[in-house]
């Protein structure tokens, strides 16, 4: 699956963590154009921390983060957004006291014009949001909230979308909807890097995947390879 261009996003031997303790150690990943890449691993493997350090919430202690070949290590989230990255946290991923439309407008904060057109584009992709644009986000159901969180992140037409456990705490039906959205977003030309507990469903829609354990790279392969690997089946799929 290697592309001839530089990958959209790459972490190169990244080490990061909180306080004194490194949570992510020497991890390398890359995401090519138009790829969906999933990171799986047990609880505490450092998956979410990896996303947060890639997105600049946490400083990189060692290693580099590259966006389309450019070194962006140390840039803040505010700056990385302008480089085409978008990030959806696992929880607290909408502005609860803002309306749906205001949430989307904030997603498009850095746009100087065309915010309205982009909101219409997002409404077309997620018609459920267009039904009550003046509803406060805090009043939405879990699934609608997750949809709004995705929509907010798409406002700037990101080249790559980082998703932290998009299916966590959703009903099985909503999980299907969210994964269908991820496929659709990817089909429209955005690369996706996601961290998932729901490894089986996530790998099934992914081009490639990484297995993280104890904050280090453990395995790497295509989605189907990982799904069929004995180690993954035994350790993470409970078979």
């Amino acid at each position, binding site marked *: 699956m290697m592309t001839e261009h530089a990958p959209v996003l790459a972490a190169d031997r990244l080490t990061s963590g909180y306080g004194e303790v490194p949570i992510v150690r020497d991890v390398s990943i890359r995401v090519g154009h138009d790829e969906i890449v999933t990171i799986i691993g047990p609880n505490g493997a450092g998956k979410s921390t990896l996303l947060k350090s890639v997105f600049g919430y946490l400083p990189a202690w060692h290693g580099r983060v590259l966006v389309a070949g450019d070194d962006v290590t140390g840039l803040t989230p*505010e700056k990385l*957004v302008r480089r085409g990255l978008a990030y959806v946290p696992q929880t607290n991923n909408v502005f*609860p006291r*803002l309306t749906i439309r205001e949430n989307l*407008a*904030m997603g498009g*904060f850095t746009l100087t014009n065309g915010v309205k057109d982009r909101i219409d584009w997002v409404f077309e992709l997620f018609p459920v949001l267009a039904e009550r644009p003046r509803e406060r986000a805090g009043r939405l159901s879990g699934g609608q909230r997750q949809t709004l969180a995705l929509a907010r992140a798409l406002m*700037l037409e990101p080249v790559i979308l980082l998703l932290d456990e998009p299916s966590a705490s959703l009903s099985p039906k909503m999980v299907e909807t969210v994964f269908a959205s991820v496929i659709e977003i990817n089909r429209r030309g955005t690369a996706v890097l996601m961290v998932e507990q729901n490894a089986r469903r996530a790998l099934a829609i992914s081009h490639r995947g990484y297995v993280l354990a104890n904050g280090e790279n453990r395995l790497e392969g295509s989605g189907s390879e990982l799904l069929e690997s004995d180690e993954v089946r035994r350790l993470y799929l409970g078979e």
Partner: protein
Amino acid sequence: MAQAVEKSVVEREVALARQRTTRWSQTLGPWVPWLLIGGFAAWSAVARTDQFVVGVIVGSLYGLAAVGLTLIYGIARVSHFAHGDVMMFAAYLAFFALTGAVVGSQTGDVVFPFHLGQLPGATEPIWRFSFGYGLVLAILIGATLAVPVLLAIDRFVYQPLLRRGSSTAILAVASLGVAISMRGVMLLIWGPTGRRYVGGIRTTVDIPGLPRIVADQFFIMLAAGVLATAAYVVLYRTRLGTAMRAMADNADLARASGIDIAATRRWTWVVGGGLTAAAGCLLALQSQLSPELGFILLLPIFASAILGGIGSPHGAFLGGLIVGVVGEVAVGLGVISPGYKMAVIFVMLIAVILLRPRGLLGAQS
């Protein structure tokens, strides 16, 4: 044995009583404050119109300052105990711009030669007001000059503490230090004696639909209305205001949306601090200027912000109106001494918070 039985009976009764209270307070409790406050407002508007109107005037100023307080708390994460002193400081800046006076030696004030009062006709009373256009300009200058002072305080006191990971308690105490310093500066420059912008008698006016009020109070009413409208437009109709509310909701997500949180923080001091300073200048017109007044103002303003639900600008303004009206009307009944005004306000606040912990318009959980 008998004792054990007795104990279990008592325990069960207590548990049942607790359940009943929980059910009652969960269903009806949150609405009781609305009913009581609404009823009281309606009654006092009819039966105690004079005090009600004064309460609305004073309360609108509390409300504006409380909007500033709630924004600074929600966005800059500072429990701003210097808020009352900021109001007074802005009023003194306006006073200085108008009169040029600072306290001198025993002989009295030293008056700086350049001040607005010198402009031709600046002190000529407009309409029935006690003041001329000079004071209007002075208030604008006072409110404007208070903003860079606040920005400097944030830059050199609050932000360094936040960067070191100081807790909210430490920031609150730091702001108390700022309050005491500001009061010291005011005492030093303008002395402890109360002052007024302009001396002389206040004329009353009859305005259709209102009881007879002092003309200056009518000006305060109009100015407060303009400021409240401006604050609403900025917060709810502009990109900046939406970004401010977004940052209050979730600063990390605001960063992920590309919002410059440092700039938004500065704008919060401009908008929230400017409102507060303007309210302070107007409040000094209603009562007087005194370095001690800042700390006294702090109580009703915190009460307003908490009553309305901390973090909610609408709630803070509404809270200010309620605090103003309840204070004026309670004292106007003549049953209790004016010295108990704050006590009445706080008893009401405690009652509301017990029944509705998030305040009147506060966000759930």
